[in-house]
């Protein structure tokens, strides 16, 4: 870890105003998150919908204003930069959005779509037709796809076009928001293999946002689990999957349905009620659903660190007896 991280996020908060007049208040979509991404590494953000993953990614990319905290990219502060100052940063840090087909203009050809970044950021005398062919080959599509339109592509092909756009300007960091959502298992594998291959060949760092734990297990070097806009656990993926230390991580991993009808599930069952961001629970915010909850958890916030829990789990811990078979 002698090298500086490529991305450093420190105590970032994003708040959204809600209500009007006397009811006016704010909710924290991202509530004080810190992490680092190193060069060439894949960092995964996991959490349920509404946990703040996408908001965090948008904040990093400058698409969402942060209310406090600092974001450092390649050694320079990038939070609060004006649009014009952000533009050169976006050459180095690209974003792949959810919904591959929806993020491609239906009126542009694939060739125009993959070379659009050059037209926005200056082509530097590049031959766009050659560039299109180069990028399409790089993501494993035939070069003659350049003349097609998005509606003529399958979901997996559209996703590849999205990847080509993201890497067009030789970025150092790619943020991929749900790169496999809505894809079938076989196509999902193709897209992940492609991202991994490009990461190795081009030395990219990647942030992958997903709620698919199986995907995370195979592609991410390090993983952060988000709950109500905070990280509850951060760590090396293999270690975390083998021995989760935060109860929420443990519950997520044990809930993961597997394609084997005879598998006996030793599940940690959580009450389904996710608290509202408008009235965050006191103390540890997970205490309303935690099977291991203790008195302290209801009133005292857990200490900061890689595991936001007063009582991190021992490997293979089972929930307390009364709930164990529920």
């Amino acid at each position, binding site marked *: 870890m002698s090298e500086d991280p490529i991305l450093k996020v420190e105590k970032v908060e994003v708040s959204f105003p809600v209500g009007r007049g006397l009811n006016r208040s704010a909710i924290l979509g991202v509530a004080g998150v810190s992490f680092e991404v190193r060069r060439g590494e894949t960092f995964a953000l996991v959490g349920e919908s509404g946990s703040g993953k996408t908001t965090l990614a948008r904040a990093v990319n400058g698409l969402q204003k942060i209310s406090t905290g600092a974001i450092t990219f390649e050694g320079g502060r990038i939070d609060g930069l004006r649009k014009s100052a952000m533009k050169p940063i976006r050459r180095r840090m690209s974003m792949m959005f959810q919904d591959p087909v929806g993020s491609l203009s239906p009126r542009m050809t694939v060739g125009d779509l993959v070379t659009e970044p050059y037209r926005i950021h200056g082509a530097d005398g590049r031959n766009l037709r050659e560039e299109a062919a180069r990028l399409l080959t790089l993501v494993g599509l035939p070069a003659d796809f350049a003349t097609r339109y998005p509606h003529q592509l399958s979901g997996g092909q559209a996703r590849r076009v999205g990847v080509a756009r993201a890497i067009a300007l030789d970025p150092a960091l790619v943020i991929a928001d749900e790169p496999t959502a809505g894809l*079938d*298992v*076989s196509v999902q594998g193709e897209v992940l293999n492609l991202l991994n291959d490009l990461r190795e060949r081009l030395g990219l760092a990647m942030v992958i946002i997903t709620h698919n734990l199986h995907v995370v297990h*195979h592609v991410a070097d390090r993983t952060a689990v988000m709950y109500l806009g905070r990280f509850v656990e951060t760590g090396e993926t293999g270690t975390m999957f083998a021995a989760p230390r935060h109860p929420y991580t443990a519950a997520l991993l044990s809930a993961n349905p597997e394609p084997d009808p005879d598998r006996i599930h030793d599940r940690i069952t959580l009450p389904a009620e996710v608290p509202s961001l408008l009235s965050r629970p006191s103390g540890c915010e997970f205490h309303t659903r935690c099977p291991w909850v203790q008195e302290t958890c209801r009133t005292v916030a857990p200490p900061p660190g890689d595991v936001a829990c007063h009582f991190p789990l021992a490997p293979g811990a089972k929930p307390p007896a009364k709930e164990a078979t529920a």
Partner: protein
Amino acid sequence: MSTLAISGLNVVFSTEDGPLHALKDVTFDVPERRIVGIVGESGCGKSTLINAILGLLADNGTISGGEVLFEGRDDLTQFTPRQMRDLRGPRISTVFQDPMGALNPVLSVGRQMINIQYRSDQSKEQKAARAIEMLKLVRIPDADSALERYPHQFSGGMKQRIAIAMALMMEPALLIADEPTTALDATLEVTTIELLKDLQEKIGCSVMFISHHLGVIAELCDDVVVMYAGEVVERGPVREVFQHPSHPYTRRLLECDPARQTERTRILPTIPGEIPDLRARPRGCVFAARCLDRHEGCDTPQPDIVVAPGHAARCNLAGQTAREGAGA
């Protein structure tokens, strides 16, 4: 008797480039009180199948053959739009991937749940009581006050449960659930599946559950139907199909699931190739172009070979390779 018995169903869309054969010779049953999972990649015809059953095909789509027998007597392909309208809701209901598509954002949940009981001649109070009962059944806390609230005041998982409550309110004979858990995280997904299973037993309806999540299918369903390019390539009891997959496509699909790789691996298995152009279907096996076991026998139309009771695969090799492929 089967709640739904589909046999030889064909659906053709007319397009600028000629007819597109979206469903070809689709045959399977949804037996009474059973949950049947439908799996397949996008573009395999899952949505077309639902629309064909519900009589909601786009204007350029027609059912060119086969029948959809509902509760053993009515062939839905012969129903008039009017008859179908009376069937959808009280007898066949649906839950979709996005619960917000089913809920009106500007009406309170109670209002919507009372409105959809318009066919019942009970009083408004009775309808409200019924709505509360259903919300309790799907474990919405504070069911009484939930009626006053609006959809945006509930979390994603709760909205989906409200949508399920609404779909089951009229105690339909068949529930069609189209990827209802895709947008939820793993813990909520499991809760929703368990709830669905529970309700299905209570109400005694049949469920057609569409998903491309093999883990969910394994956990929830009694039977599974595997679709590829508009054809049913394999069907049978879940345990049979998952343990003895008899169609090469099913085997490859199962191998591809990252959940099946217990060791961490950087390179995930895939199925190279693309789904064939449905405007020019191959004469023989529809999977042949991507199949590793392809031989001359694959160039002619494929028979449905029964490999075990209730378990059939549309592959000429089905009987022979089935049991070997098992434990692999």
